[in-house]
């Protein structure tokens, strides 16, 4: 095949795909058709151990709907979602960072849908349009997982703030997630850049990079590495730190003094030529009281008041720990910040970022 024909083939391929994507999007906006049986594909960035607690609740209620879970880190799910724009594979997005959903929405990939009970969701946890394009379920925020045994062995003090992490004694002892693949990574970088101004923020990240052992693929891995002693300090997120401590690992959950970056996990209906009614059934369940109670056992901040007590290990007033975070701004700048970050630090990244 000559270069020229291959070029033509490819060009027409892309054009064809785009056309296919734009073709019949017949499903009337606002349709509320449901189903009690079927098979749906759900993209999610929820933790595996969370899914294993949440999903059985749905299966009990809708035993005839088969749910195929595609779970990966936030950045991966986002990239996959965007890459499949012309021919979406997912029916539903469940528990993906709102900033990612904002990007997808901007590309016209979401179908507005108001799930049953959406009125009970706090206003700042859902899209302001009606019907909303996305609906949040909970909030997670950055936390350090510090291995107390290794800390003692290395005879270094417990870090309590972002600034502490720059101290030379932590050199090579810190692991954090790569923001390109990990939502947790991104909210931490975003938090630094918002806490300080942007120029100062990058300077801070440059210095942090000097202390960094490796950037991991997922947001939970730094914490798990800390739990196994493979690193001393893992920059991760609240649930992971609290969970592993509760599991008996020598982990201390540290919530940095300056405050934590945070992000809302949200659900959305993917725009497809033919929307599977079971997808709506799933979205309804995903903000039902049952589901919310389950979320509340993982996270102290949920999109709906559930009456579930704040799980042990969290700050008494978790809202105070959160920095002021502009989700829309974070979404708009996501691409630029990630590019910049990659240019500066990617060489240190663990495979797959």
């Amino acid at each position, binding site marked *: 095949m000559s270069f020229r024909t291959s070029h033509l083939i*490819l*060009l027409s391929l892309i054009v064809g795909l785009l056309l296919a994507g734009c073709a019949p999007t017949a499903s009337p906006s606002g349709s509320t058709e449901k189903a009690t049986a079927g098979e749906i594909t759900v993209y999610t960035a929820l933790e595996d151990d969370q899914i294993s607690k949440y999903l059985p609740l749905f299966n009990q209620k809708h035993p005839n709907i088969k749910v195929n879970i595609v779970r990966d880190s936030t950045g*991966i799910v986002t990239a*996959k979602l965007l890459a499949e724009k012309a021919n979406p594979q997912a029916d539903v997005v469940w528990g993906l960072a709102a900033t990612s959903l904002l990007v997808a929405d901007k590309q016209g990939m979401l179908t507005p849908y108001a799930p049953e009970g959406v009125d009970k969701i706090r206003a700042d946890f859902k899209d302001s349009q009606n019907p909303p394009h996305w609906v949040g379920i909970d909030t997670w925020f950055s936390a350090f997982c510090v291995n107390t045994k290794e800390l003692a062995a290395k005879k270094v003090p417990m870090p309590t703030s972002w600034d502490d992490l720059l101290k030379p004694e932590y050199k090579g002892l810190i692991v954090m997630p790569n923001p390109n693949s990990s939502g947790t990574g991104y909210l931490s970088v975003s938090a630094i850049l918002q806490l300080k101004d942007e120029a100062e923020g990058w300077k801070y990240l440059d210095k942090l990079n000097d202390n960094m052992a490796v950037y991991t693929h997922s947001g939970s891995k730094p914490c798990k590495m800390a*739990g196994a002693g493979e690193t001393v300090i893992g920059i991760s997120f609240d649930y992971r730190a609290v969970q592993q401590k509760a*599991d*008996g690992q020598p982990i201390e959950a540290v919530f940095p003094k300056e405050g934590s970056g945070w992000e809302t996990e949200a659900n959305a209906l993917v725009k497809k030529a033919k929307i599977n009614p079971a997808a709506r059934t799933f979205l309804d369940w995903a903000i039902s009281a049952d589901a919310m109670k389950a979320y509340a056992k993982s996270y102290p901040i949920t999109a709906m008041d559930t009456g579930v007590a704040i799980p042990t290990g969290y700050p008494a007033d978790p809202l105070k720990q959160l920095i002021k975070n502009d989700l829309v701004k974070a979404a708009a700048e996501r691409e630029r910040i990630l590019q910049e970050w990659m240019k500066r630090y990617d*060489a240190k990244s*663990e495979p*797959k970022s």
Partner: protein
Amino acid sequence: MTIAYPLARLRRIGRATASEERLQQGLIGLTVLWLLIGIVLPLAPLVSRSLSDADGRFVGAANFVRYFRTPGLAWSFGNSLVVAAITTVLAVTLAFGYAYALTRTAMPGKGFFRAVAMLPLYAPSLAIGIGLVYLFGKKGLVTTGFLGLGERLLGTPVGWDIHLYGAVGIILGELLYCFPQALVILVVAGSLTDARLYEASHALRASALRTLWTVTLPSLRYGLVSAFFVCFTLAFTDFGVAKVVGGNFNVLATDIYKQVVGQQNFTMGATISLLLLTPTAIAFILDRLVQRKQPATLTTRSVPFQPKPARRADVVGTLYCSLIAAAILIVIGTVFYAAVVNVWPYNLRLTLRHFDFRAVGGGGAVAFWNTVRMSLYTAIVGVIVTFGSAYLIDKTRGLRSLTGASYFLSMIPVALPGLVIGLAYIFFFNPRHWHVGGLAVPNPFNFLYGTMAILVLANIIHFYTVSFMTATTALKQLDAEFEAVAASLRVPFYRTFWRVTVPLCLPAILEITMYYFINAMVTVSAVIFLYPPSLRVASVAIVNMDDAGDTAAAAAMSALLILTSVGVRLLYEVAARQLSRRTQRWRMRDA
């Protein structure tokens, strides 16, 4: 004189068998077709992708230029080459010694050493990485002096930190991964030496070193070249080990993965794929050029070599093999140990809780059973297709161009890395329409995408060449005149195939089946881009678990895969022995 051969008789015979000829020719046509669809056609969109930008515009070599100008990426190419080169030299050298001990000394326990050396073949390369993490990682057994046990016993810290993450870890892991592959080749080559050459050398009072130089090495020359090629290709393209212990040390295989899965950048993925393909293709061509010159080292008059006991050589051989076998057993054993330790390294109580995969990613037990099913299908469909193709290529009379083309196509897959196959399959099978010269052609194979069938196809192609060569070698050992005799008896070829060819080749057929099964069980690279969410597989689950930091669960899944593969192999050995007792009676000389 009576007219015993009227025309009518010949005509009647003719009508009965004409369709059979067409059938065979049709089948060889199908063989070419499936090889084209499985191998060649999917490579076309891969190449065109690498020469286009994200919107499909032709950009020539721009992607390659960009690759080499991106510092984080460009290093990987050199990294991959260096790591693969070092691994290859080490693996072939170590395997040479091991093969020498197995074929040229009379050391005891050869069966044991042979079996242990093969163990890594039954493990995903990720598992080897995981074993290394638990041995040499920050909290590894060796690094911490057996978790402080050494210090308690000896009163002084005895840990040894080899700085696993990076080149050291990758080379160690690839070494274990490649070692058995090199060993298999060298042992076969080693057992093909004519004993008379050694007798001659001995009679001429040549020193041991001179015998090594003039008899052993020349007879192993072709085996060595093949071993170098196989090891280089494996080490250069493997992704499992680098994924687990690579740390900040990027290599091409992990780069492709990063680009495709991490950033969904298929264009760059295609570009790096071609970079991954180039050295393996060159190595492949060199290997074929060398192998073409190979004379038959074993004539019918050759005498098989029977090593005689030689105290010093046997002791050295035993020690050497014990060391390597111990290294292999320790790494694999560590995987099993890590799988049952409660919280490494803080709570060493034994538990089976890591085998409950519900709280970790990857699809858990379902993924495991999917893998077993996939491997089973790969084995069954694979052996039928492979043996059938090899048979048609070897036995079809005439149609030289088609059989020649099929043979050539059958050689290609050995040079194709699994990641490249996976990516090429996405480009080829995923679109609903192919666009050829501005025309939208409905993709007749689109229905395969996201099914078990495409996973099976990818696996068959990935492991095709070795299976094909096994089948061809077995077929070539049969009397070339069987088909001529059958034709003269007017028995259709498929009947002879079934009644004679298949029974005679049964050992090879079973070996191919096994080869497909084991490799499909442990492969990750060919399926990682292709598996649909409804069909997750165990090896990919290990990747996901490792990504999420659930290393213990990853170790548990690895252990499960190893146990299954080894178990199936053992069952196979028992069954094959039973079967051969019943079906291979004709091999016995006595009535």
